Every structure is written in C-alpha cells, then in structure tokens.
C-alpha cells in the first residue's frame, strides 16, 4: 500500500524480520513486516530500537532501501567497532523482532509528481541505499525522468546492489557510473579515485537543465561533492544532502 504517512505522531511499532539477503561481505538487506505500516516516500529513513535482556537499549537510523509499495526493507553495513550493526548483519534471524518508527524525513525525498528536473544521485559507500529506493520508485512508477547515479565504492565487491544497478544501466535509461577508490579488478575500464570536481564536471547534468541532486554518504564525502556541484553552478537549494556517520548510517554505528 503506498501512503504518505507524513503527519502526526511517530510511534514505535514492532517489526518482524521476514527475510535476510547478504548484499556484500559486510552488507545485509533486512526485509521487515510491520503490521500497520502506512507507507513512505523514496529517500526516507527509519529509526530502529533494540532492547536487550537487561533492558539496555540502542537506537539507530537506517535509510529505507525499498520503494513505496514494496515490502519494507533496510540495508545495513557492518561496522568494525559497531554495537548495533554487527548484531543486525550477523546475529539477526528470520522471525526476530525489534522496534522501529517511521517513515522519517521529508527533506531528502524524491516525488515524481512534485519534483522537476533530471535527477543526479551521488553515493558514497552505503549512501547508495536511499538513492536505490529512489531509483526503484522511479522504475515502479514508469517515470522517464532522466537519472544518473555516480557511486563511489572502495572495491567492486563492495558495490551494493551491483547486479540491480547494472540492469538499470542497460535496460532502464539510468546512467550508472561507478568509481572504485581503493582497488579495481583486472581489466577495469571504469573510473577510479575519489569523486572530485573534475569527475563531477564530466558527469553531472549541465546546471542549465535545472537538475535535482541527492548526495548521500559519509560527511566529508557529502560536503566535498556538494561544494563541487555548487561550484559548477548548481543552486544550493537544488542539492539535497544526507550525511551518514563515518560509520555508515545516519546517527552512528
């Protein structure tokens, strides 16, 4: 059911894990069943709350990886020193439960009826999660809005949703450009190195086309990209940003 669920009190609801999918060696997608889920907009996130036996609680935020209308899902990256992400990516089993509230955040959303301009999506690491929700929503609704995703990852095995993104590239009119910053496979002809002003000048839509941009990833990545885009003539108000902790998710590991 697609809903807007944007007003009113946020309440904690119980979610049950229905499916777990390993995306990479350290990243897992968790499908969730939430009885009274009222829907969301592409780009929004959830807060989750875990409560241990001794009553100890931890809260974290994760972007929604699914499009409106699909089963609700989040994608979590395991952080070395994390307290919550190792639990979600390694210990969690089908049938387990935790609490969540959402959807949260109307600023970082793309709505095909409301928003105009070609889409530029720039992802650093696990920042690709909400952008993939946007691409899925774009496809589900049959939108022909031109879209381009520039996705920075350390290595090819670290690319989340790799097969799905490759399908977009070839079949669905979305340009997907990867840049691998740490190591490339033999024969790699794609881009390498961190996203910088020169790469963006090459890839970004001309400012004259009034693009709408979503940048998501670690704080330093987001700030470098946003500054570079403004330098290319993008109005700051048309560059939407969501910073994740150096940890990989909004709010910390």
């Amino acid at each position: 059911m697609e809903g807007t669920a944007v007003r009113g009190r946020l309440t904690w609801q119980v979610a049950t894990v229905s499916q777990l999918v390993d995306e990479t060696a350290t990243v897992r997608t968790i499908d969730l069943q939430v009885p009274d889920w009222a829907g969301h907009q592409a780009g929004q996130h959830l807060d989750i709350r875990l409560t241990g036996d001794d009553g100890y609680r931890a809260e974290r935020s994760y972007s929604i990886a699914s499009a409106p209308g699909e089963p609700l899902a989040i994608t979590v990256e395991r952080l070395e020193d994390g307290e919550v992400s190792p639990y979600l990516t390694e210990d969690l089993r089908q049938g387990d439960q935790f609490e969540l509230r959402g959807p949260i955040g109307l600023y970082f959303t793309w709505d095909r009826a409301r928003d105009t301009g070609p889409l530029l999506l720039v992802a650093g690491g696990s920042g690709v999660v909400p952008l993939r929700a946007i691409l899925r929503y774009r496809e589900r609704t049959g939108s022909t809005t031109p879209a381009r995703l520039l996705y920075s990852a350390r290595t090819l095995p670290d690319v989340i949703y790799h097969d799905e993104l490759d399908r977009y590239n070839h079949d669905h009119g979305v340009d997907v450009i990867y840049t691998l910053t740490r190591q490339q496979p033999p024969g790699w002809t794609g881009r390498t190195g961190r996203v910088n002003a020169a790469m963006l000048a090459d890839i970004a839509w001309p400012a004259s086309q009034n693009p709408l941009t979503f940048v998501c990833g670690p704080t330093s990545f987001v700030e470098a990209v946003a500054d570079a885009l403004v330098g290319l003539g993008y109005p700051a108000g048309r560059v939407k940003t969501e910073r994740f902790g150096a940890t990989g998710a909004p709010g910390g590991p």
Partner: protein
Amino acid sequence: MDALDGNAIGGLLQEVFGADMTAAVGTCAFCGRVGPVAETVVYLRAPGTVVRCRTCGNVLMVLVEVRSRKCVDLSGLAALQAS
C-alpha cells in the same frame, strides 16, 4: 567524530514537534542564514543533541532528555517555519 546533519534527528524532531521538521526552514539568530533544518550541523554524541548553523557555527537548538522528558531550547533560531 564528524558531525551529521538535521536528517539524523528527523525522528527526534518529529517526536517533539509532531510533524516532519527536516524540511522546515530555520533562520539563524546570529548570522541570519536561512535554510532547511536538514542542512544544519548536528552533534549527536553528547549529553544532548546540539544543532549548529552551517554558516556561523552558533548553536541554533539544543535537545536534552531530562528524566525521560524531551526538552528543546530554540533560542538560537530567530524563526522556524514548518513547511
């Protein structure tokens, strides 16, 4: 520890204000910068949550949970307009 942005406290703000505030527009009482709450600089790892102006660094909002009650100080904002 890098700062985050107003997206990271979307849930907390919705709990306090009863509506989404990430897209709400705030005006800094110190330098006059106008922008969405989502674009503020947020320090989460502290005895409270501190929200600062991206231009001048002054404190716009502080949210503290005191004995399970959420308290919010908005004195650094000259204006806050929900969208």
